[in-house]
């Protein structure tokens, strides 16, 4: 499977009523590579991630993840995707461990993996407190565990580093960073940081791609055009 690209988008569009959320989007991400998606708020970054996460169907164009065309074959891909976005997708009244156990059962993952991840992000001590009592940073660390619990082949990170202090960032690096070797799509408000850890870069403005280049070829002009 290494040769087929992990993510292929051709002419993808998504509308919200009359408003265009995404339009004419074509990009191919080889397996194991990292794509950085840059753009202002409302440029369509989150919509793109939700389409890739099979949570939103595309209204036009083709989306092929891990060789499976969406939305027809979405169920075959679902277990192999991890999404980490603004919403931690954790029940605030349940504890961190209960949340992760719930997700582990949903994905058919051995509960032992929950303990492993909790210690990896050093949350074992606070794992039994309700999530609503945890600080934003801790919630984000538990959310990282949730996103990688089922060892996804594609990881979708919507500003994953937000709310994480430098210390916490190092903790989650082996899980969500490049070393984990997963195909990743990351979005960030800090273009320099995103480009530093990306192989490919995609610029979005008002739902339309402005550039789609290897990360190294992205010039400050490209970036300025996005945020002007």
């Amino acid at each position: 499977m290494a040769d087929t690209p992990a993510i292929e988008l051709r002419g993808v569009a998504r509308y919200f009523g009359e408003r265009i959320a995404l339009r004419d989007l074509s990009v191919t991400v080889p397996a194991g590579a990292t794509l950085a998606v840059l753009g202002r708020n409302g440029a369509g970054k989150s919509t793109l991630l939700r389409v890739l996460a099979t949570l939103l169907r595309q209204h036009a164009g083709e989306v092929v993840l891990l060789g499976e065309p969406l939305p027809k074959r979405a169920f075959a891909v679902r277990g192999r995707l991890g999404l980490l976005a603004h919403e931690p997708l954790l029940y605030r009244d349940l504890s961190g461990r209960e949340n992760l156990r719930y997700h582990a059962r949903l994905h058919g993952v051995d509960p032992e993996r929950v303990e492993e991840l909790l210690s990896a992000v050093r949350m074992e001590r606070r794992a039994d407190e309700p999530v609503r009592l945890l600080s934003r940073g801790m919630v984000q660390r538990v959310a990282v565990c949730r996103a990688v619990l089922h060892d996804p082949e594609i990881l979708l990170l919507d500003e994953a580093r937000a709310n994480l202090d430098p210390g916490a960032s190092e903790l989650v690096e082996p899980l969500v960073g490049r070393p984990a070797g997963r195909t990743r799509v990351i979005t960030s408000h800090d273009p320099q940081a995103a480009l530093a850890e990306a192989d490919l870069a995609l610029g979005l403005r008002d739902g339309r791609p402005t550039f789609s280049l290897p990360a190294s070829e992205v010039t400050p002009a490209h970036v300025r055009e996005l945020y002007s």
Partner: protein
Amino acid sequence: MKTAFTVLRKDLLLELRTLETLPAMALFSISTFVIFHFGLNQDTIHGQLAAGVLTATLLFAGILGVNRLFVAEREQGGFDAFLLAPVDRSSLLLAKATALFLFLVALEVIAVPAFGVLLLGPPLGPRLPSLIVVLALADLGIAVIGTLVSALAVQTRARDVIGPVMGLPLLIPALIATARAIGPLLGTVGPGSLPGKWLLILALYDLVFALVAYAVFDFLLED
């Protein structure tokens, strides 16, 4: 099936932790009995009137549960978490309907004895078995319709209003069948026989709407 059980376990655990839904339903039903006492200005009631009071109270208390059913999913990303998992989507319908059914049963465990003590003239004891049969079928109907209506309403803006306004007319036939089935049971002369006709209608109602719910539920999650 396993997924449905997983989601159900989470729901029951969540209810245990927050105790939001069940106590509210129980207290609501007991205060409704008090209101009926003063409203009807009668110390004890029996027969069809008693059946009507009991059924109406349980229905409205049930609506409270219906309103709360998907709120956690809507506000804390529960839908996305579920949709991301490689599971059959109608297991969410099965899990939530079962959860609502269990809430209704728990409600009845509290409300029916309270009804017996507060309002019901004839003793409840001998009537209990057949009463349980009718209430079980009624709870099934409320659970199925309630889950469907709750899933429809939770995504809308006016969700606390749309849910009951849509659910009540849908539940009227179930209410008719339940009240008419319980009527003869609560007569003063002694537990009457279970009117088969009404049980049949109630069962037919549950079956049809279970099939309809199963067929259309996935479309509510698709986006």
